[in-house]
């Protein structure tokens, strides 16, 4: 072997010192630490501890500099604190909601001087504490940014401020001086006793003047029919609770007809199931569109609006009434009428027929029917007539003619907006321009006010004294719960001033009621209660005369025959006649039937869609394709000489050949540019005006049109729906429904079904323990639970708005709802059952859906940061400031009740100026309006306003629960069931469908409800073992079994 030299690198080759050292060190095994130097680590320039110090300091400094800057918000304490006011403790004052003729006794919750929530007044014998969505939302109207803030004089179509009331009075006096025409006060129905007295005094001062009452949704037909049949131009009280058989001919008495809160309570009291003796009323609905009431009916019959009269006459004939030559009905309706008549006959004295028609003749026939079935004096009472509608259509029609003829020199308008809601608004506007002195007392520059010369805004009902008398003898009082926000004056005070009475309305009011009640003490008690009511009296009959019956029947017989396509004009449950048109809560509330928001549209039958667009909704793939997109075809619709382009929405159950359009949308100022500032920022773009489709038949307004023609435009229009899938896909563990017959025959149907489903996991009894691999935990102390009775829920949506107001739920606007971003914590799901092709067969069912507060909640274990977790009281709670917004909980919630703050809806974000996005995620002006300092006054200070990027959902009103517990604790007593704590949805519900309480308290109402109704009790998606704390009671319908056979 030769001495070969192997080398790995040049150093080794040259045998340098460095390389030798490296080679020597190569296999050195000591830890490298010791090889530093002998001084050790602590003596180094920057030893380890110093290093950690520097690291700590620099991290802290960077964190402080980067993230701890908080916006400074100043809180200014009272300089002189008012007595009886503790910051943070709410006060409650009784008041009255008044809109148009409607009057509802309410209680205002006032926090630190601001009313923030409306509750029903439980002392009211009419509503018994129930509310409607519109009543719940009325508190937001107080903070409406479009309210007129001072008296104005209109100059060239623009408002010019009048700085004081004196100046305004002088202006009006100057304008009215030396006129020889008539002075007219035009208003909605006025029920207030004091106002009526003031008006009378004003009219007396101005000889020849008159008061015209005009209701946008007039009941003139009924008033005049009652005059003909009973000699009184009033509307009697109805007692649905006494009726075993209820037949409604198109009256939406649960949604918009007369006094829906009262009727809903009465109606549902006859439908709550007592399991020991099951029984309930039977409700038939004849209608042309799907109304909220029709959706609740046991059986619906659809017809064209032109057939309404014929059905009434047919029904009267079938009941044995003397009708000569009843008009011909289709086979289908004939059978229906016969069946209904049979049921009515069998329930004489316990039956009621109501009609939503505004036609005098139809109402005369209905009066005859009610006579025939013994309703007069049993289910209809003349003891305390309803006063909320007194307008006579022909009076107004005459007034408009007089105005155009130049006979009216002064027109004072209060709470009426005919320039928008009168069918012939053009004629009214023309007439108004001929009136020399036109004064409006409306609260904003609406379509009518902006055409008046002088506007003196009246205060919101929360800012004023006042009274109302919705039923004769039933007084409801108002008291100011906040100092007037703006320079407003009650119209009564103006009338007093202008008739020479210098008293203030407040003094007048006080003197009036002190006099009536006999002293200050009684007056104050009345104010505290908010209501003055007579003792409940028995139903009283009216004296009937049938003299006009023959004429009415003859008029109906000769009425125009039905045409191929007809139109119904209706009021939607959320918007009514449009008085609250700038209320984003209401605009964003989904229509109970169509589930659309922010718009109106023509509801058509699925057949219409199939015939004209070839889309068959009974075919799943086609329905799928249609419903997952918000775009709806647009048609050009023509009737009564008016034409609009409007999208169509197919609604199963709509009568074939009938379109239905809601009023209250499409508000617009004379110059459309002014709409946002005059009427409100939420208004522009919200739907189209349907009032011009209404017609005048010579004596009353008709809310329907025949001979309708349409053409396809080929355009699409996107509507913001909150629900797109309409059928249940047979998922019986979501909704359980049965007929009364089934329930009586087999009361155990629901428990059997549940047992069957759960028997593999221990059955109903042991499911909680055996349905899981994990341990079982006791739940001592308070455990909150809720029960929702599907039989009592009518789907009116009062709970949605109650929740909105209580929990500062954000308004997101149409654009965002369209993107499925709405924030409602509470929603009411609506499903159709039955055959899409047969409108009479389609049934609708509602299900309130909110966080189920599962004891084994799937959302909780997936949150990476435990932002959502379980309280010891069974609440599934959200820690908003822990939430990082991964949305995993939302995906994993089987009920899909979690709501994410996709954008900055509330301006609570730490990023400034981020509501100005264009393109994707553009926010509507309504959202920005809700962030105005004025609108934000409605926020509940007990509930945090959520910022962008966090998840939120129903909390069972945890702030109320804490409040109630604290109250009980301070008084050193156990929690009082149903008194200390109630959730907002429960309190707002007019039908007591929601019961809430401590399920560990055996005496609580929730436990009692669950025990008493255990044959109907179930939990939604129970088999998932998520253990919801909300239980539902199965829906029971009472259809005529013979007809079903």
């Amino acid at each position, binding site marked *: 072997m030769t001495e070969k030299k192997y080398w790995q690198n040049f150093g080794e080759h040259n045998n340098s010192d460095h390389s030798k050292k490296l080679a020597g060190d*190569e296999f050195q095994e000591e830890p490298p630490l010791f090889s530093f130097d002998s001084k050790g680590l602590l003596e180094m320039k920057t030893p380890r501890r110093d290093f950690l110090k520097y690291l700590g300091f620099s991290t802290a400094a960077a964190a402080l500099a980067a993230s701890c800057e908080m916006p400074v918000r100043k809180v200014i304490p009272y300089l002189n604190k008012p007595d009886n006011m503790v910051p943070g403790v709410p006060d409650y004052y009784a008041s009255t909601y008044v809109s148009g003729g409607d009057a509802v006794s309410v209680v205002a919750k006032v926090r630190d001087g601001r009313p923030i929530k409306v509750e029903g007044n439980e002392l009211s014998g009419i509503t018994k504490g129930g509310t409607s969505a519109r009543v719940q939302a009325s508190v937001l109207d107080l903070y409406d940014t479009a309210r007129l803030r001072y008296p104005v004089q209109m100059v060239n179509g623009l408002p010019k401020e009048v700085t004081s009331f004196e100046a305004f009075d002088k202006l009006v006096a100057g304008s009215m001086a030396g006129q020889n025409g008539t002075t007219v006060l035009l208003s909605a129905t006025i029920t207030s006793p004091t106002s009526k007295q003031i008006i009378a005094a004003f009219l007396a001062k101005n000889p020849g003047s008159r008061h015209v009452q005009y209701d946008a949704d007039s009941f003139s037909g009924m008033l005049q029919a009652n005059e003909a049949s009973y000699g009184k131009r009033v509307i009697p009280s109805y007692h649905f609770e006494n009726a075993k058989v209820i037949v409604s001919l198109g009256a939406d008495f649960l949604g918009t007809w007369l006094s829906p809160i009262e009727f809903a309570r009465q109606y549902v009291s006859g439908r709550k199931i007592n399991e020991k003796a099951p029984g309930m009323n039977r409700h038939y609905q004849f209608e042309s569109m799907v109304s909220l009431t029709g959706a609740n009916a046991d059986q619906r019959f659809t017809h064209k609006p032109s057939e309404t009269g014929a059905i009434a006459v047919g029904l009267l004939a079938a009941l044995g009434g003397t009708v000569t030559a009843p008009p011909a009905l289709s086979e289908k309706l004939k059978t229906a009428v016969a069946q209904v008549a049979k049921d009515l006959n069998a329930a004489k004295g316990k039956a009621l027929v109501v009609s939503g028609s505004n036609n005098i003749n139809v109402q005369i026939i209905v009066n005859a029917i009610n006579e025939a079935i013994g309703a007069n004096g049993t289910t209809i009472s003349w003891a305390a007539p309803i006063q909320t509608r007194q307008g006579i259509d022909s009076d107004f029609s005459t007034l408009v003619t007089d105005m155009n003829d130049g006979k009216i020199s002064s027109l004072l308008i209060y709470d009426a907006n005919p320039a928008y809601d009168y069918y012939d608004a053009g004629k009214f506007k023309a007439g108004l321009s001929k009136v020399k002195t036109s004064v409006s007392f409306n609260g904003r520059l609406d379509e009518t006010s902006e055409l008046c010369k002088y506007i003196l805004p009246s205060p919101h009902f929360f800012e004023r004294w006042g009274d109302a008398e919705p039923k004769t003898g039933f007084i409801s009082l108002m008291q100011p719960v906040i100092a007037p926000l703006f320079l407003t004056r009650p119209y009564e005070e103006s009338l007093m001033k202008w008739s020479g009475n210098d008293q203030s309305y407040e003094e007048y009011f006080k003197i009036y009621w002190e006099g009536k009640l006999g002293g200050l003490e009684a007056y104050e008690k009345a104010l505290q209660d908010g209501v003055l009511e007579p003792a409940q009296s028995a139903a009283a009959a009216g004296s009937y005369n049938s003299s006009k019956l023959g004429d009415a029947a003859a008029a109906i017989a000769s009425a125009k025959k039905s045409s191929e396509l007809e139109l119904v004009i209706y009021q939607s449950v959320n918007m009514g006649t449009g008085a609250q048109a700038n209320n984003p809560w209401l605009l964003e509330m989904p229509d109970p039937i169509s589930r659309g928001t922010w718009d109106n549209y023509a509801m058509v039958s699925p057949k219409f869609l199939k015939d004209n667009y070839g889309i068959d909704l009974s075919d799943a793939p086609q329905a799928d394709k249609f419903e997952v*997109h918000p775009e709806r075809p647009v048609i050009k619709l023509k009737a009564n000489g008016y034409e609009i382009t409007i999208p169509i929405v197919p609604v199963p159950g709509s009568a074939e050949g009938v379109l239905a359009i809601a009023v209250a949308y499409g508000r617009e100022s004379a110059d459309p540019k002014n709409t946002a500032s005059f009427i409100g920022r939420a208004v522009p773009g919200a739907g189209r005006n349907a009032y011009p489709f209404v017609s005048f038949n010579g004596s009353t307004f008709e809310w329907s049109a025949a001979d309708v023609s349409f053409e396809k435009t080929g355009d699409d229009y996107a509507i913001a729906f909150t629900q797109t899938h309409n059928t249940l896909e047979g998922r019986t563990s979501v909704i359980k429904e049965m007929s009364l017959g089934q329930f009586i025959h087999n009361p155990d149907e629901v428990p059997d079904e549940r047992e069957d489903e759960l028997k593999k996991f221990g059955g109903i009894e042991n499911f909680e323990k055996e349905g899981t691999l994990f341990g079982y935990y006791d739940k001592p102390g308070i455990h909150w639970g809720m029960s929702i009775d599907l039989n009592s829920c009518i789907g009116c949506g009062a709970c949605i708005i109650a929740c909105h107001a209580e929990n500062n739920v954000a308004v997101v606007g149409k654009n965002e709802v369209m993107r499925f971003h709405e924030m409602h914590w509470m929603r009411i799901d609506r499903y159709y059952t039955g055959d899409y092709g047969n409108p009479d067969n389609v049934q609708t069912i509602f299900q309130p859906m909110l966080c189920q507060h599962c004891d084994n909640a799937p959302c909780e274990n997936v949150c*990476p940061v435990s932002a959502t977790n379980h309280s010891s009281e069974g609440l599934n709670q959200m820690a908003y400031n822990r939430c990082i917004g991964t949305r995993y909980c939302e*995906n994993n919630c089987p009920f*899909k009740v979690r709501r994410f*703050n996709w954008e900055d809806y509330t301006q609570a974000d730490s990023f400034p100026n981020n509501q100005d*996005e264009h393109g994707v995620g553009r926010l509507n002006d309504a959202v920005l309006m809700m962030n105005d300092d004025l609108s934000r006054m409605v926020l509940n200070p007990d509930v945090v306003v959520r910022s962008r990027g966090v998840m939120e959902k129903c909390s069972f009103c945890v702030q109320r629960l804490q409040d109630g517990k604290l109250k009980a604790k301070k008084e050193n007593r156990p929690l009082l069931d149903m008194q200390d704590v109630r959730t907002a949805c429960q309190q707002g519900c007019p039908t007591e469908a929601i019961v809430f309480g401590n399920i560990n308290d055996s005496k609580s109402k929730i436990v009692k409800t669950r025990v008493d109704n255990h044959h109907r009790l179930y939990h939604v998606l129970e088999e998932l073992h998520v253990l919801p704390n909300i239980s539902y009671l199965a829906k029971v319908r009472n259809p005529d079994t013979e007809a079903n056979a």
Partner: protein
Amino acid sequence: MALLKYESQVRPPLIDGNKTYHQVTVDIARPVEERPSRLWWIAFTIAVLLLGFGIFSVTREVIYGVGQWNLHKTVGWGWDITNFVWWIGIGHAGTLISAILLLFRQGWRTGVNRAAEAMTIFAVMCAGQFPIWHMGRVWMGFFVLPYPNTRGALWPNFNSPLLWDVFAVSTYFTVSVLFWYCGLLPDLAAIRDRAKLKGRKFFYGLTAFGWSGSTKHWQRHESLSLILAGLATPLVLSVHTIVSFDFATSVVPGWHTTIFPPYFVAGAVFSGFAMVQSLLIITRKVFRLEQYITLEHIDVMNKIIVLTGSIVGIAYLSELFVAWYSQNPYESWAFMQSRANIFSPYGWAYYIMISCNVLSPQIFWSRKMRRNLTVTFFMSVIVNIGMWFERFVIIVSSIYRDYIPSAWATYYSPSIWEVGFYLGTFGLFFTCYLLFSKFFPVIALSEIKHILKRSGDSYKGQMGEAEKETPEAFAHEMAH
């Protein structure tokens, strides 16, 4: 005796051309040492522009909120998590190639492992963007870390699969980076030693960590590689298993499926290899490395693609079977209606998935197709489209119609900013990959040299002679 140095001649050589060690170094280091081509500049510009658009899109999302995307109350995850799972899946091939194939002593891995590992790292970086920026309040994202805090005993929720993701993905990323960099050290040193420019010498000197090629270095390098391979191997399986837990442990019908872990891993390997194919076919062409990344490599990887594609296909069938067999109405709806029903709103996505992932890879049963570059490139893109749709189908078509029909969704399609974010991650990926291919050797230089004597073209050619060698001659040779 001859067996000790015997290399099968049946296996074609893995390095073509008659290469010497020096030639190998020159070939592989060429792209690093040459100025970048015009093509590279064009590609780099496009990648940076895409990245810029992605950053803009994400900035909008951070400022204005997740509402900049079209997700909604029913579909809480859409493109964001689809892309996350997709990128994570792509990031599987690298570690699989370098770790599992290292343990299995698959010689062919040396040609592709460096690029595949780099791809893994960049893909995981892209994947990581999605769970970070999909948060509503990303500035609070540090809440997921179990750091000591002043809020009492406030820890993240260790029950949440999302938290497992945080640990799984960050571990995987860390180990992958270490593994990759460890392999790079000798190569960096080689470039350093060849460097003539001062700056280059400094840079590679810095990055080479003073590698001198001493025996001790090599010894430690080999043990560290083996240890990291051992660590990375379970990670290859665990990462996608844990990602699949995001879905499998939920209650959503269509997500709640026990088959998900193996199915996701197979899918990940499937898409990862497809991505390796896409990248390497271009890389070998552009950098003229056809002799190192041979048709043999392409062929082997296509075999893996057809294998994993078929596993995924079986998983799809099992899902349908179980959906039917369980008689669970919600699960059958998710599979039979929301997916398999082509007329349902997202039915089309399911069939894109099936045809891309299961049907089209079957052409690789043919050797001719496996060795056809055009077909392979086309198929690799198709597979990744299919795998993207698989994740989209799983995520969106399950949640958009789950339990309560009233909550069934409107049609979810992405907004421009969602697409922008996705494009941005392509920008990030290619920016990184292009920089990598410019500054680092895309083939593991030192490892290629390891196999040169066994699988190089010329050595294979000499095997005939080796067989003839007498045992005595061999023993003599071994003794010296």
